[in-house]
């Protein structure tokens, strides 16, 4: 078999034992890699109904089909577990040399079981697996941990994925870091912490055998050349943070916990402003010729020194959505999240919820007591120092507020509402427990469906249904019968990239067109040159449907019902008062209609369950037996 070894490594942290599982080629043709394979490994190895922070959960890591090959932007891997934030499937992607090292070990995937008695780091050195003491790493930031391990191993070819203090403290919005990149969302870091796993280091010294190296090299060269042109210019020069001004002009920039879609000071927290005043450098993921990541640096003043990896989703969450117009505070807050190991999006949205609670009298200064401010502090929107301090309190679960916000908005609001007889859940911006992204969906009706139905929760990357709305292919302010099929199409399109995985920023570089017709034939050729298979357009398209289906199946087994496909209360009941998107909400009637036509487009039942014949047709017979109807 080309492109794969056929072997999955299982690691038991409790017993400190390993075993090797072999998989047939048909299994790889169905699940490929990335989020699909990682989710499938969760399906096979997680005890249904388990507490996500208990030994019954697993960490599954799936390699990329193109990692370690010349294919541009293929240096990515997928990670999944049962999310401690959503209690459904939690899947994340990250691009880094960790993915390449994993591929070179010959393991197609890794499944980590059980809970270690003591804090541990695991070192995979090709076939060998070592369990090493990690006590000296506790409390270190993500960068400090990676640097310490690099010194200890004395070999730059050893690549490590680590958690920061937030993961150690079981913060439910904690992430996993590698080469400065993050497997960011759904709380993977807390799962690592629950297993007392501080770091996973990998050294792979083997090559990757592909079926047609000459063809793969030529195609990779052509894509690389295209990636230097106008198709990726916006990413290379400004990165995704250029979206701040776009979203603001569309009236969709989350502002003061989504109370508005227009931020008066958007210019001051824009990608353009970052580029002019704070940009230190751009960096690239492994195998990437685009280098989109903008690194912002604060050299002087109260928030110095700070260096943060600035993406749009981090920036909206920790600037406009907290009402903060001080770019230096935003860079510092993002840097804190990066170093302490929390998801910038969930962190920012959770802080903005706390700020709204403070401004509306639910919280007082005393609720914000911490070591730095023993009497507490005011937490008004726009207060950069309060925002920065809260990023630190969350990671350390410091004080009442740090411990509360470490749970994310869903649990924090439920706790406060029970304790104080309030209704702060109305301001808790999450879907299935995962905090919402940087696009206000009240005036993006297709995207609202994509988010509500999203198997991962409130995530833009897994649905991509903002595309037809924002690009004007449909009327974003209204609902019609096309949206169910559109939401299906966009989520499965995204799932193809997330499964291979390839960074979506390359999508125009195959033929100049980003749609299926432009990309799928080229991707089929890449797959075939790597594996020797004979994939065609339809086979590529099925990758996305299968990836989405295995995640949905996992959720159904965990007790998902139609009611779980919801939107935040605010998006359904509070129209924005100003800007181009003012006056809109997604009504109950609209949402239920959208869910109806989406389930129909997916070939599911009215209750959103999957018929057995549908699963069998996708080659998922064993899944059909367990959850098919």
């Amino acid at each position, binding site marked *: 078999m080309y492109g794969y070894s056929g072997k999955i490594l299982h690691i038991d942290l409790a017993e400190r034992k390993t075993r090797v599982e072999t998989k047939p080629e048909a299994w790889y043709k169905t699940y490929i890699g990335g989020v699909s394979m990682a989710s499938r490994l969760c399906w096979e190895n997680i005890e249904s109904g388990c507490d996500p922070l208990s030994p019954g959960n697993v960490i599954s890591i799936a390699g990329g089909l193109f990692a370690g090959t010349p294919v541009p932007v293929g240096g990515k891997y997928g990670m999944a577990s049962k999310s401690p934030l959503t209690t459904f499937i939690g899947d994340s992607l990250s691009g880094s040399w960790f993915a390449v090292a994993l591929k070179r070990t010959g393991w197609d995937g890794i499944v980590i079981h059980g809970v270690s008695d003591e804090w541990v780091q695991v070192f995979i050195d090709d076939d060998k697996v070592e369990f090493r003491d990690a006590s000296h790493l506790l409390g270190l930031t993500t960068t400090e941990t990676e640097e310490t391990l690099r010194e200890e191993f004395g070999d730059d070819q050893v690549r490590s994925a680590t958690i920061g203090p937030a993961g150690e403290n079981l913060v439910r919005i904690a992430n996993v870091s590698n080469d400065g990149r993050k497997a960011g969302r759904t709380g993977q870091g807390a799962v690592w912490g629950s297993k007392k796993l501080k770091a996973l280091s990998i050294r792979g010294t083997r090559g990757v055998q592909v079926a047609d190296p000459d063809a793969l090299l030529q195609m990779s060269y052509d894509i690389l050349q295209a990636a230097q042109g106008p198709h990726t210019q916006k990413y290379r020069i*400004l990165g995704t943070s*250029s979206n701040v001004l776009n979203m603001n*002009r569309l009236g969709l920039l989350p502002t003061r916990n989504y109370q508005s879609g227009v931020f008066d000071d958007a210019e001051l927290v824009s990608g*353009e402003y970052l580029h002019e005043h704070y940009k230190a450098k751009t960096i690239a993921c492994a195998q990437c010729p685009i280098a989109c990541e903008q690194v912002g640096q604060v050299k002087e003043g109260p928030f110095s020194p700070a260096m943060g990896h600035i993406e749009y989703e981090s920036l909206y969450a920790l600037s406009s959505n907290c009402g903060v117009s001080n770019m230096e505070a935003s860079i510092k807050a993002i840097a804190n999240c990066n170093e302490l190991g929390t998801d910038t999006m969930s962190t920012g949205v959770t802080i903005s919820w706390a700020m709204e609670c403070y401004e509306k009298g639910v919280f007082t200064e005393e609720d914000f007591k911490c070591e730095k401010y023993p009497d507490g502090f005011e937490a008004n929107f726009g207060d950069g120092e309060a925002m920065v301090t809260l990023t630190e309190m969350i990671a350390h679960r410091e004080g009442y507020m740090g411990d509360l916000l470490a749970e994310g908005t869903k649990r924090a609001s439920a706790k406060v509402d029970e304790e104080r007889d309030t209704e702060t859940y109305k301001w808790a911006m999450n879907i299935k427990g995962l905090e919402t992204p940087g696009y206000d969906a009240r005036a993006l009706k297709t995207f609202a469906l994509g988010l509500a139905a999203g198997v991962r929760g409130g995530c*833009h990357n897994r649905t991509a249904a903002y595309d037809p709305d924002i690009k*004007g*292919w449909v009327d974003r302010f209204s609902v019609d019968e096309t949206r169910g099929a559109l939401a299906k199409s966009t989520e499965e399109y995204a799932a193809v990239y997330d499964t291979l995985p390839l960074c979506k920023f390359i999508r125009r570089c195959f033929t100049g067109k980003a749609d299926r017709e432009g990309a799928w034939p080229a991707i089929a050729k890449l797959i075939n040159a790597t594996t020797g298979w004979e994939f065609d357009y339809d086979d590529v398209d099925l990758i996305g449907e299968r990836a989405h289906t295995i995640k949905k199946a996992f959720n159904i087994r965990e007790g998902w019902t139609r009611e779980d496909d919801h939107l935040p209360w605010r998006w359904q009941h509070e129209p924005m008062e100003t800007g181009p998107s003012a006056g809109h909400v997604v009504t109950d009637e609209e949402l239920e209609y959208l869910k109806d036509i989406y389930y129909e487009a997916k070939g599911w039942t009215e209750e959103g369950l999957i018929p057995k014949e549908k699963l069998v047709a996708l080659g998922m017979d064993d899944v059909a037996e367990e959850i098919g109807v």
Partner: protein
Amino acid sequence: MHVQVEFLGVSRLATGLKEVALDLEKGTTFRDIVHMLATRYPTLIGDVVQANGETLQAPNILNLNGKRMIQENQMDEGPSDGDRIIFMSMSAGG
């Protein structure tokens, strides 16, 4: 007819401007406006406007008043007096 043109993202870097005011004859199309601006600011050619000087380079797109994206097949329509035209380059992800 008076319209305001705003540059965001790559178009702002290319022109060095945040916005310009244009006085246009009635019937001026969006395509005419792109051509006019590409002539006035040749640095738009390449990353923002294609070599023909009148077609936007994907994924650049014009937005009208924050509400409507002008599709390629709508470029022969035109703005109204007082409209705001925004050069956007939409990015996904992050």
